[in-house]
């Protein structure tokens, strides 16, 4: 029973690395620096968290309801940890996204006084003397719980270095990125990284990371990507942009999260090119309005969560998952990603094909709907 900093006495072997950036922790698998995406279930699927220097691409659901929530969780987690944030959107004003973030239920540890006159523990009485968890973790908490019904306080957002990009100021595209919006956004991000001294070539120790959130990249307002064919090499702008964004993010202490409305792309080749350019790619498929909405298997859930790509960053193997079918569910206060469990097959509901070929009894005027258990 240690009076250490956590309830669990498990300590990772090796010298304890002093993590000085709030909201990050080294991965348990390969000591890679990870940040939380705001959703604990998504962190689990990515191997403990999203690695600093990687790019997560989220393919949007049909009406951009749930992907926007993913983006909001990502931003809210950045606010809670004080990470630098860059948000870009053409479809809706970035100000409206940033002013509607879910608030966290975790209170600041300095504010709460540890209540020492707790009730006596009657069952776990051996833990009575152990210190409670909150005191020494202080500000370096990895992942918070959020409540979607409450909006984050704007005073918390004002304390954080946030820059919004809405496409009003643009410069002409150059080189492979001919589209002016992509080019201007790339320059904007580059300037932000330089001003925050986050580049890995800059030798001083880093004290912060930057979260880059791009909403609805590749939507009709950005360019002609949704077109049938690759008209005049216009796909080049988006694919080159994602590739350059990944390069920027890799060479600095930043993390990129991009949502793309891939359901608008007529040619699936475009999305497969973007998949190779990104590190982690997931796709949301919501049941709203599709025939799967009435499927009893999916009764409790709001959509399928497809993991398209997981990459092996600084390791030989990407994070291994035991299940391949994942679903997401939006409860009133939170969004979770769960394994899809198919209901157990009971003998009455299973249709046995070999019994169908047995001669059907009864008059020929009845259709094939006779139950099979008529004879004993």
């Amino acid at each position, binding site marked *: 029973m240690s009076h250490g900093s956590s309830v669990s006495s498990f300590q990772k072997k090796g010298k304890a690395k002093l993590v000085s950036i709030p909201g990050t922790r080294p991965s348990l698998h390969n000591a890679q620096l990870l940040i939380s995406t705001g959703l604990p279930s998504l962190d689990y699927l990515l191997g403990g968290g999203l690695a600093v220097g990687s790019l997560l691409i989220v393919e949007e659901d049909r009406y951009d309801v749930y992907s926007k929530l993913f983006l909001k969780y990502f931003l809210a987690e950045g606010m809670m940890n004080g990470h630098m944030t860059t948000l870009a959107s053409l479809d809706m004003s970035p100000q409206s996204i940033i002013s509607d973030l879910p608030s966290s239920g975790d209170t600041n540890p300095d504010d709460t006084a540890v209540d020492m006159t707790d009730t006596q523990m009657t069952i776990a009485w051996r833990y009575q003397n152990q210190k409670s968890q909150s005191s020494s973790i202080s500000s370096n908490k990895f992942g918070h719980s959020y409540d979607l019904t409450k909006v984050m306080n704007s005073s918390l957002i004002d304390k954080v270095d946030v820059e919004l990009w809405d496409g009003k100021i643009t410069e002409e595209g150059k080189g492979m990125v001919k589209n002016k919006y992509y080019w201007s956004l790339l320059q904007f991000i580059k300037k932000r990284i330089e001003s925050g001294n986050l580049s890995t070539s800059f030798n001083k120790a880093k004290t912060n990371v930057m979260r880059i959130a791009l909403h609805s990249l590749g*939507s009709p*307002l950005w360019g002609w990507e949704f077109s*049938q064919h690759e008209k005049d090499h216009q796909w080049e702008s988006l694919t080159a942009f994602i590739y350059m964004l990944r390069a920027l993010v890799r060479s600095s202490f930043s993390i990129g999260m991009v949502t793309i409305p891939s359901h608008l792309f007529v040619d699936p080749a475009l999305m497969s090119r973007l998949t190779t350019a990104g590190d982690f790619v997931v796709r949301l498929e919501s049941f709203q309005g599709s025939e799967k909405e009435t499927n009893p298997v999916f009764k409790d859930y709001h959509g399928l969560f497809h993991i398209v790509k997981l990459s092996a960053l600084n390791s030989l193997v990407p994070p291994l998952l035991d299940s391949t079918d994942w679903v997401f569910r939006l409860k009133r206060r939170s969004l979770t990603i769960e394994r899809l469990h198919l209901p157990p097959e009971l003998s009455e509901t299973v249709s046995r094909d070999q019994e169908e070929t047995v001669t059907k009894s009864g008059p020929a005027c009845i259709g094939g709907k006779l139950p099979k258990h008529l004879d004993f």
Partner: protein
Amino acid sequence: MFKNILGKVLKCSETPIPRFLLLTDTSEVCGRGVLWSIMQSHLHNNASIIYLSTELSPEHIKSSLNVKESNGKLHFHDATVDPCGWDNDQPNVNVAQPLHNIMNSSYVKGSGGTQKVVMVIDRLEKIALYQDPLQLIRSLHILASEEHVQQLIVLSGRDVLPENILSAVCHLASAVVYVLPTTPSSCKVVLKKPSGKVLKSHEEFTLTPDLQVQVRKAQSQTTSPSTTDPETDAILAAQTTFNLALTDDQRRAKNNLLLPHTRIQSTGGQIHYTPDDVDDWDDDDPDDDLDI
């Protein structure tokens, strides 16, 4: 559950009002009646309307709408005659210009200040013939997000626009109405609320000559096949060698029967045990923990 979404959209009582309403029809059914019904509601609410017409002349529209009755203002951009300016160097409307420039030109001329207008584009596909699709979509987005525009209503055909443009415009729109060629006429409505909720419904409507609409729930096209009919039940009962049905007497007798476990519960059970000769009956309690 009948939501009457179409009724609310048509009477402009949906709050908040969808900024960008897309009405789609096909070559088999014309959605212009629905469009004029919405315009009637707007005129009754004293809104001013800027109407870009590409098929019908403004005089025809005015006479169909009976504009004299309402107080609202109705301003037309006539793109039916010489839209590209081939005959005349200064046509009424030059459809090659960006759409938001065309629509906003009359707004600036009209009353300034903060009065909100409703913009109507009749037949998007006719405009799409003359403009770059990307530019057109950007113009629609600009128009829908401008402050002085209360609502942008676009009438378009589903089967004459290229699919990618149609899907892009549907993606941008806050509410989409698909008028279907069924009898009686019905339409599917998709409404995206700003809170993120998406409502879909399939509703039937009738349009009266004075452009009032009555909406009711649509009959669902496919009914799930019922597993048993009463007829097949009777036939099946004749097939079996036993009879599962109960007569009334039998049912009453069944209900009155007191089952053994219920009898015990009401009267209390007793355990009668007679020990065998090999039993070692000991009255003591070996653990000393019974507290009877």
